[in-house]
């Protein structure tokens, strides 16, 4: 019989990698920006690409955030999320075309008012549509992933076709509001004004969302619901109502993303939502399903990488995102910031 090992407590500071581990995802974004700086020869083009990468990332984040929360909260995977993006873009652009006298005038205030009207209109339309979508399409198939995927895909097909019925099959070309055209020069780099606006809107949405989730009671309930839904219901909260609210908010955000994306591309089609969903899914997967922060970081990484690679080697742009996803999944199989416990 051997004696018990001697009690010898030690006290050591955590090693640097251990202390950095919680911040690894955000450090990856910084690392990516630095890698881009090293790989791209001219500083001015690096700056331009970084801004456009950030703008793209913000827009993808706006579209993806609703999807990831909906999944986290109710375990519902919505393949029809792209439909909201398309509808948002079409409604928003219709408003902008109606307000042509305001968008055409070289007056920043008028332009921004028109843009705001378009955004609010689009968000209202997609929010309402989200409510209907949840009631009619998603509600009967709770707790059944296979049926959810199939039914929401069916919903996407129907909505895309309805858009074609209402707005016609041709793609619609749009011009940005007058004072958002062109670029400003900063440190020798041309920064498109519209992209700066997109970065601003994206940051505001992210901060507002973070505030709501971290500092308000409803945010607390949502976060607790993602963590452990049954417990929240046992405490007397009607999680179904919360979920509908999140679904509507997520749909409205997708609509906002649709308007921004449409103005970014300057052309909208009924299928644009489904095309952006490819990037959205990559972002949601690498961020970790259910995590808003992960989604934000993932979106920035995808946007930056896509822009850097498209500059260095145009044909590899889309493949680079797949490679990024593979690398992240090898590192953290549940995504960068896993929130939802395996259900």
């Amino acid at each position, binding site marked *: 019989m051997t004696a018990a090992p001697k009690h010898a407590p030690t006290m050591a500071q955590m090693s640097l990698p251990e202390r950095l581990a919680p911040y690894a995802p955000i450090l990856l974004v910084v690392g990516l920006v630095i890698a881009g700086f090293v790989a791209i020869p001219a500083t001015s083009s690096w700056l331009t690409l970084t801004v456009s990468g950030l703008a793209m990332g913000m827009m993808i984040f706006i579209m993806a955030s609703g999807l990831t929360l909906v999944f986290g909260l109710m375990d519902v995977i919505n393949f029809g999320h792209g439909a909201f993006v398309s509808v948002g873009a079409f409604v928003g652009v219709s408003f902008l075309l109606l307000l042509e006298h305001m968008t055409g005038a070289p007056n920043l205030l008028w332009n921004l008012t028109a843009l705001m009207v378009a955004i609010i209109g689009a968000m209202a339309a997609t929010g309402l549509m989200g409510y209907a979508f949840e009631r009619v399409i998603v509600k009967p198939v709770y707790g059944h992933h296979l049926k959810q995927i199939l*039914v929401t895909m*069916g919903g996407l*097909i129907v909505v895309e076709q309805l858009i074609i019925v209402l707005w016609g*099959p041709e793609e619609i070309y749009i011009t940005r509001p007058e004072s958002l055209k062109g670029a400003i020069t900063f440190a020798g780099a041309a920064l498109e004004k519209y992209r700066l606006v997109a970065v601003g809107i994206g940051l505001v949405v992210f901060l507002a969302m973070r505030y709501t989730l971290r500092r308000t009671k409803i945010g607390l309930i949502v976060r607790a619901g993602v963590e452990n839904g049954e417990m929240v219901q046992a405490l007397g909260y009607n999680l179904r109502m919360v979920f509908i609210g999140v679904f509507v908010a997520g749909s409205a955000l997708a609509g906002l993303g649709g308007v921004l994306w449409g103005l970014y591309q300057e052309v909208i089609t009924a299928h644009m939502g489904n095309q952006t969903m490819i990037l959205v899914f990559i972002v949601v997967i690498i961020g970790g399903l259910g995590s808003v922060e992960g989604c934000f970081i993932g979106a920035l990484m995808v946007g930056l990488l896509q822009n850097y690679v498209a500059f260095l080697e145009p044909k590899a742009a889309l493949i680079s*995102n797949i490679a990024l996803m593979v690398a992240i999944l090898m590192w953290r*199989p549940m995504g960068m910031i896993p929130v939802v416990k395996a259900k």
Partner: protein
Amino acid sequence: MLKTLVSGDTPRSPILLATLIVILICLAFAPFLFPGVRSVDTAARICIFIVLVASYDLLLGYGGIVSFAHTMFFGLGAYGVALASTHMGRGFDALLVGSVAGAGLAALLALVIGLFSLRVRAIFFAMITLAVASAVAVLVSQLSTLTGGEDGLSFKIPRALGPAFKFMDGELFGVKANGKLLKYYLVFISCFVLFLLMLRVVNSPFGRVLQAIRENDFRAEAIGYRVVHYRVAATCLSAAIAALAGALYAVWLRYVGPDTTLSMEIMIDILLMVVIGGMGTMYGAVIGATLFVLAQNYLQNVLSLAGESVSTLPLLPDLLNADRWLLWLGVLFILSVYFFPTGIVGRLRGK
């Protein structure tokens, strides 16, 4: 004997049995029963889509896995044949090499995707396949020196399968006995064999385990089956068969292009066929594919007639436009997932 041929999985419904026999007879004698370029073409498309849809059903209906990359595997087979025929010259050896290489590559790719996503959570698979498939579709249209880009590739198939080749003088029951007839029967017999093979697979112990995993993966794992291994194996098998179907499609059309093999529309078509025909039974693929391809080729005419008849009313003509038939299929699709999750075949079998 017949029971062994269908691996003991009989239709179990007189109406279904009758329908299947009618479909089999129509497809087996299509060049004689419905002479005419368009109807034979429709018959060949039905054969190929039956195999493609059945291979998808192996994944969706039996494995409970949703994939959006099935057209990618389909395209791999098609491009395999096209590239082999272009670079090796026309000949049966090129067809063989192309289809085997396509099927092998498809299985390998499915293995990699499966190991990555199925290991963690089955739901990742749907999203990852969607992303990978669209990346491949973009890549194919960009690598135009190799794949012909958006225009696709036209290639020559062996002379024995062309209309100029006569394997006997005169006519056979009023049909020209040329290579075109041989080509149809190459497609038909290959599809028939592949279909019976899949019927064999799903009724084997392997297929039973897959069904068990679909019903309750946790329990299947507890009983001692490695769920991931079975799911990945099903993915690989279904990818390889889809690639073979793609190879046949390429041979039939003598052309491959992104629109005929890789597009998202075809993926949606496959989903519709599986769900409408009936998930979880191979016969559902037969019924679904037949109905869908027939509807695709002929129902659009009916729809345009309906559109003309209401042309005075507002909005209705737009809704009934022949180009909008996908709208009605989408509605039908949602309704059938809700109300007939077992599809037409499940209904007929009285489940």
